[in-house]
Each structure stands twice: as structure tokens, then as C-alpha cells.
């Protein structure tokens, strides 16, 4: 039973067919990548999976239940977390507080309990704090805890965003271009990190442009072009796929 099943989803924006009849599955415990040239529809796909967009047709089935058309917070509560292509940290909060927000789905205290500061609320706060620090330590950034998020470097912000997504204890993690803007060494670190995340038992679906990263760590790769799926296979097969080469490198006039 695959963890995530995407079946024939499509999305149009006026005349633009951003995603056209795309289907694939993601097996539990796998690392699957989605690649394609710019404008291929990768981010639209992510938005469709995480509830920020509703598909015009088709379905998204997660843990055997349909999630298409559900709002982002409902999907997050079911165990699907994501990061964003353009970092969306809460700028005025500290790095630790950012990660603590990730724990929101796993905690309960509401308005009344918060106002009255009940004992069980305080206990829960301590647990949230510990979990957040644990996630930051996992990523090696625990020293950044008290720093304001906006003051961190780009690479550090990426790590905080990842820690935040991990803190929600997801079953599947959607990473939107995790290596964007990183240099070669940082990218290699990200690759290692993703495999460590998978070793924790979390399934990973990643959109990326960095071919090296994708080829190194993915179990399977989906290739999109102009909103359509043109390949869905193991890395070696995708590398030698004629369609994929043509889409990336253009026609061979010989």
C-alpha cells in the first residue's frame, strides 16, 4: 500500500495547463524526486498535494484517504509536512520558537488552557520545547535557538525550516527545492540530512533542480515537462531516457 497516491491530477490557470493528468505513487520509506525544467509545474504539484491548491480533476490519496480539496492545516494534521521554495520562516520569532510552532499539531492546549496557564499546559510547553531542541540538535543547529529568525544566514534559515517541518512528526515530508541557493558543500550536507531523515522512517518527496543531489539520493524520479509526466523510474533509467534528455538539452539537429 503506497503512502501517497497521485491519480490523474490536473490544474489549469485560465489558459495555462500547469499540471496535466499526472499520476505517480510514493512508497513508504522511499525518497522520491520530482524534477523538470522551469515552468514544468513542480511547485504547482506541491501546492496541490499540500492543500494550497485544489485540483480541477483527479485525486490525491494519502494513507488510503483522499486529501485533495482539504485545507493545508487538515493535511498537516494527517502527517504531511512541507517546506517552501522561498523560505517562509516567522521572521520576528526566534529560531527555537519557529521550530516549536512545528510541534503545534502534536499538542492540545487551547485558548482557555493557555489563559489560565494550567499545570498540564505548562507540562506540555516543556515537552514542546524539548522536542524542538531535539530537532534542532538533530540538524546540528541547536546553538541558534535564541536567535531571531530574520538574522540567520540563508543556509541556517533553511535548516530551521527543515527542523520546523520535522518537529511536527510527519509520516511524509515534502521538500521544495531544499538545496536552492546552497553551495556544493552545503548541498552535500543536505543530501546526507535527507537520508538521515529517511532513516528515521519518514518518507520524502523532493522537488529539486540540483541533478547531482537528485541522482545520488533518490530511489525513484518523476520527470515533468509542461505539466505532463514524461518519466517515472529509477535514476539510471531516467538519465538515459531520450525524452528527458531532449526536454532538458533540446533537440539534437544531427
Amino acid at each position: 500500500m503506497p503512502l501517497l497516491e497521485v491519480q490523474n491530477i490536473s490544474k489549469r490557470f485560465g489558459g495555462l495547463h500547469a499540471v496535466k493528468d499526472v499520476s505517480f505513487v510514493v512508497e513508504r520509506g522511499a525518497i522520491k524526486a520530482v524534477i523538470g525544467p522551469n515552468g514544468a509545474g513542480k511547485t504547482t504539484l506541491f501546492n496541490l498535494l499540500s492543500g494550497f491548491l485544489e485540483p480541477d480533476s483527479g485525486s490525491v490519496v494519502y494513507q488510503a484517504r483522499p486529501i485533495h480539496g482539504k485545507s493545508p492545516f487538515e493535511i498537516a494534521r494527517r502527517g504531511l509536512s512541507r517546506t517552501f521554495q522561498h523560505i517562509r520562516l516567522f521572521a520576528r520569532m526566534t529560531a527555537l520558537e519557529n521550530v516549536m510552532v512545528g510541534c503545534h499539531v502534536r499538542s492540545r492546549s487551547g485558548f482557555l488552557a493557555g489563559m489560565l496557564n494550567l499545570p498540564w499546559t505548562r507540562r506540555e510547553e516543556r515537552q514542546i520545547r524539548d522536542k524542538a531542541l531535539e530537532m534542532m540538535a538533530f540538524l546540528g543547529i541547536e546553538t541558534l535557538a535564541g536567535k531571531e529568525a530574520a538574522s540567520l544566514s540563508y543556509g541556517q534559515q533553511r535548516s530551521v525550516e527543515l527542523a520546523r517541518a520535522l518537529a511536527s512528526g510527519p509520516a511524509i515530508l515534502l521538500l521544495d527545492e531544499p538545496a536552492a541557493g546552497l553551495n556544493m558543500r552545503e548541498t552535500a550536507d543536505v543530501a546526507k540530512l535527507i537520508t538521515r531523515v529517511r532513516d528515521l522512517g519518514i518518507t520524502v518527496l523532493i522537488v529539486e533542480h540540483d541533478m547531482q543531489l537528485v541522482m545520488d539520493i533518490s530511489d525513484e524520479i518523476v520527470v515533468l515537462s509542461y505539466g505532463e509526466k514524461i518519466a517515472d523510474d529509477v535514476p539510471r533509467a531516467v538519465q538515459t531516457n531520450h525524452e528527458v534528455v531532449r526536454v532538458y538539452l533540446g533537440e539534437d539537429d544531427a
Partner: protein
Amino acid sequence: MTTSRVTPILALFVVVVVVQLLTLASGKTFYLTQLTMTAYYSLIVIGLCLLMGFAGQISLGHAGFFVIGGYTSAVLTTLNLSSYKEAPLVSLLTRLRVLTDRQDLYGGQVLSVHPWVACGVALVLALVIAWAIGIPVLKLKGHYLAMATLGFGTIIYSIVLGTQRFGAADGISSVPPFPLLPGISVSGASSQRITNYYFAWLLVTVAMLLLANLINSRVGRALRAIHGAEDASSAMGIDTGRYKLATFMLSAVLAATAGVFLTHFNGGIGPSEASIMKSVRYVAIVAGGGMGSIWGTLIMSVVLNFFSLRGYFGSFDDAVFGGILILIMLFAPDGIIGSDLRKLVKKLMNKVQKSVSSKTQTTSHK
């Protein structure tokens, strides 16, 4: 973590007591009246601070909720159902103490709603209206949200100004005192001045404690997340619609509470309390005190309201608030008190710590 939260509350309590004793000593006990009114107006703005500064939703119509609370209480407690005394429903309600027989200012017998019941109705009404208005309004953003809340405030103003039942331009007067305990009530009587002062500030202290707790809790964090990046917060499992609505309702109830008690304190209420200028003032106070700080907002509220009520701004009252709005937004969009004050305090404390530790170092060298 708990000590840093309790300390400001204790400090507030001490300041409140000290101020009262000072007025006693200097013979200026009449200041207490304005200070009591200031307390009630502050209830409104700290709720608004939660809404604007933490949930990030601007409201240009909050005076509307103050008025819903005040007018509901005023209308119900000045009803006269004496002529219906024989009706079964009326006599039932009288027996249940929902309606009370009392003497009005002119010695006549009046059968009106008991202030406690009226207060309950007022708060429930404010909650319901906040919920009903909030659902569509909070889906809007930016200018649309501002205009929608402005529109809400203006409708409330039109209604209270234009309806005869609500006293039209004259408002409602001869509102009876609000009994609290035997012998103590919220009213304008000079014998009750000191008790009223403490009651009002008790309400403020409790509200500050509850809100400070909320801000430092999971919900408070979620609100700040919504303000920071709404879609990211949604992706982290926060039901942004529900949280914004709950915050809106909470701030509405605080404003309505202020409305109820201030009406009983003043013995009446008028349509000017619903004017857009009032709502703008509340926004100015929150902006000036620092949208991210309820303590900054409280300080700003006390300063501005007290001076305004004492008439120090003269006929330039509105201009002062307008000017403050502009100056703050141009030069200190984070408020002049909130974050800057905290940074200043932190700097000072660091300096103190450094000098203390360097002193202990030099002594240990000996």
C-alpha cells in the same frame, strides 16, 4: 519563566495602590475618576493589541463592540416593565430575580432587568455578533479588512445615533449602579470612588494576566505565526480561520466588558462612544504602544487616555491622536514603547551584569 510573567503583574498592582495613596495624600482624589475611566478604556486596547499585534488583523471598528456592550446593558437596565407587572412571564422573571424592582433617580418605581443579567446578555450578544461578523470579515486582508471593520463600526454608529429607542443623539442616561457585593457597586457615586477605582484596575490586572499567559502559550505562538507567515502557519497545522475568529471574539468581549462597566460607572452612554474617531484612537494607542507588546499598549493607554480625559489636549484631542498615528507609523512602526523599551531594558541589564561580574572578578584576584 513564571517569575518573569508574574513580576510585571505584581508591579502593576503596586503601582495601582501607590497611585491611589498618592491621590489621597495630595488631595486630588478626583483624579481617581479619570483613572477609573482610563482603566476601562485600557481593557479595549489590550484586547485590540492581541488582535492587531499578535493575530495581525487590523480592526477600525472596535468601538462598535464597546457600544454593543454598553448600550445593551443600558437599555436593559433602564427598561420599565412596571406596567406589565401582572403578565405571567414578567412575574416569573421577577421571581427568578432576572427583573428587579428598584427606585429610579426621581423616586419612581421601575421594573427593569437586573444588571448582572443585562451584563450577561451584553457579553453574549457581543460574542455572537463578533462571531457572525468575524466569519466573513476575517477572510479579507489588508485594505479590504480595514474597510470592512470601518464599515462595521460606522453601521453601529448609524444605528445608535439614529434609533429613538437608543436615545438617538442624547444616548441613554440614568443607568443604575451595578451591584458587586453588598454595599459595593459600580457607579459614579463619590463615596464609591475608591472601590470603583480598584475594581476597574482589578479587571485590567486580571485581563493582563490572562493575555500574558495566552501570548506565552501554544496559542500565542500560533497567533504570532499567523501574523508572521499565514500560509506557512497553515502548513504547520494551524487552523488560521478559527484562531483569527477566536481572537476577534476574545477582543470583542473585552471591549464589551469595558462598555458595560463604564456605562454603569458613568450612569449613561452616548453615541459618540461609537464614532470612528474612537476606533481610530484605540488603533493609535495600540500602534503607539507597540503592536507586539500588551504592556507597551497599556502604558500608552494610561498616558494618552488620562491626559485626554483631563482635557490636557483641549480641542485638539482628535488632532493629537491623528498626529500620534502618523508619527509612530512614519518613524517607529514597531511602537515607541514596546520593542524599543525592551531592547533598552535588556541593554541596561547587560551593562549591570557586566559591571557586577567584573567587580567580582577584580575582588577574586586579591
